[in-house]
């Protein structure tokens, strides 16, 4: 989100505006596109976003309330829905905590030291982004499923990973793996090691340096990563779908619950649960805009 005013981005604009007094005709600058071209492009931009993004979003809320408020609240408070919501919150909480702890550890190792193979290690961190969510689920089935590599051993010792909470967490951690690290690593590299070195030389322990120097320096970026990680963790569908087993009231997360309702033609109930996730997306974007103003950075994927 651009936080600069138009005049700051383009000083020429400030001059242009100053000239916009009655009686003085404003002349087109070298970089100004013809009036028609400008408004045609703006119109196309609005039309495209309205068609592909705004309408679907509005549709979610309209369909959810299509049978009135009572039907809406009934859909989101029925026991199966509540258990799906609880499960989603649980899985997201565990995944976010794990990714935060290991993200901070990895960022410390990667950003604060010089070693060979660093850029290779960073590209490995980004690897899950380029793996289809379905494949992210599949790999854990191949490891821990009944026919999987560790399947027989797990079965013998009566440990359930696939079609149970651990599988859901593993698949979610996999798809959200890069989110926090890729916010922390570039920032910590940029900040350098001088402050930490000073603290160590003054006698602080490594852990104390981390808590008092490093963590406060990266807190907004960390929060930003946590926010994106959480949004993806709660909304993940493909990877979770493969490892869940779709046991109603037990291993169904919110997105999977939405799918089941939709496939059973309970459209209104399905959209009602979907509004919760759509609301999460909107809150995430607003919080993201706020954090970007704190960190002072622009948008990026």
């Amino acid at each position, binding site marked *: 989100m651009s936080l600069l005013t138009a005049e700051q981005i383009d000083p020429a604009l400030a001059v242009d505006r100053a000239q916009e007094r009655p009686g003085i005709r404003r002349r087109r600058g070298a970089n100004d596109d013809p009036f028609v071209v400008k408004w045609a492009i703006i119109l196309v931009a609005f039309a495209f976003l309205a068609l592909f993004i705004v309408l*679907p979003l509005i549709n979610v809320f309209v369909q959810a309330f299509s049978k009135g408020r009572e039907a809406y609240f009934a859909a989101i408070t029925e026991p199966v829905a509540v258990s799906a919501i609880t499960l989603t919150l649980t899985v997201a909480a565990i995944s976010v905590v794990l990714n935060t702890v290991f993200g901070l550890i990895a960022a410390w190792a990667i950003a604060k030291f010089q*070693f060979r193979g660093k850029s290779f290690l960073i590209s490995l961190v980004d690897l899950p982004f380029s793996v289809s969510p379905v494949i992210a689920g599949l790999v854990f089935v*191949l490891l821990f499923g009944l026919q999987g590599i560790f399947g027989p051993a797990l079965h013998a010792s009566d440990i359930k990973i696939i079609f149970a909470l651990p599988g859901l967490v593993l698949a979610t951690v996999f798809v959200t793996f890069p989110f926090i690290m890729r916010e922390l690593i570039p920032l910590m590299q940029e900040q350098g090691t001088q402050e930490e070195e000073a603290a160590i030389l003054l006698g602080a322990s490594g852990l104390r340096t981390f808590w008092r120097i490093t963590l406060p320096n990266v807190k907004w970026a960390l929060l930003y990563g946590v926010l994106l990680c959480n949004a993806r963790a709660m909304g993940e569908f493909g990877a979770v779908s493969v490892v869940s087993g779709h046991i109603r009231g037990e291993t169904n997360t919110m997105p999977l619950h939405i799918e089941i309702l939709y496939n059973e033609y309970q459209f209104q109930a399905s959209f009602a649960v979907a509004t919760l996730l759509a609301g999460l997306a909107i809150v995430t974007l607003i919080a993201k805009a706020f954090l970007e103003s704190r960190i002072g950075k622009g948008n990026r994927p």
Partner: protein
Amino acid sequence: MSGASAIGLRRYRSVIPGFGITMGITILWLSLIVLIPLAALFLKTTELSLDRFVQIVTSDRVLNALRLSFGLSLAAAAVNLVFGSLIVWAITRYTFPGRRILDALIDIPFALPTAVAGIALTNLYAENGWLGALLAPLGIKVSFTPLGIFVALVFIGLPFVVRTVQPVLEDLDKELEEVAATLGASRWTAVSRVVLPTIFPALLTGFALAFARAVGEYGSVIFIAGNLPNVSEIAPLLIVIRLEEFRYADATAIASVMLIASFILLFIINWLQRWSEKRVGGQ
């Protein structure tokens, strides 16, 4: 430290403590969550004989699914490239009411869970939906056809193009265009000969990212696709179907083909980014 040095990581001297333990934990965590699971996929694939593997991935249904996934992803990324560029241009170059809102809306496909996007688009483009009802008299069916898959892939890919090109266009020195104009270039010449070559690497990267995301996409597609074998069945769905039929070998073979394709894509994207950094840095 021994774990770190064993894989060839060597650090330079530093007063900051904790390299050994944090690097060890990092590599352990990365291996447990990402590397070993992905390796398991290839390990399982090697259990298949080469003949069997070829037989699976060249069967009509698999080839049709792969063709559909890659073809439609390419088409959707191309559409995103065109409209994404126009949107970036509008956001970075013009001031108009609603510009900030337009900018904020771009991220919706990132934040909105794919299942929600899937049911919303399906409902919207179904024959009795808001848009589907308008298109039906024209004989255009979107939901439950390959066209529907295309719409979903356009939806999820848009932010990748916009957010990759936007910073580059924001940083672009406008004086270059002014120089071109004072030297007598028309506006169109200035844009096509000065602006376009500068943002070209970013456009390519955005295109590749949108394409890569679309190829693997599952959640938003399966609702709207109709999922007819050989017609509107995407490759990720075929993996899920084979898995549910307990035909693990088939699922694994298709997955490894897709995974190798996305690794090649990732390699190209990395190379593009390095190339563009060099170009921008050299100017």
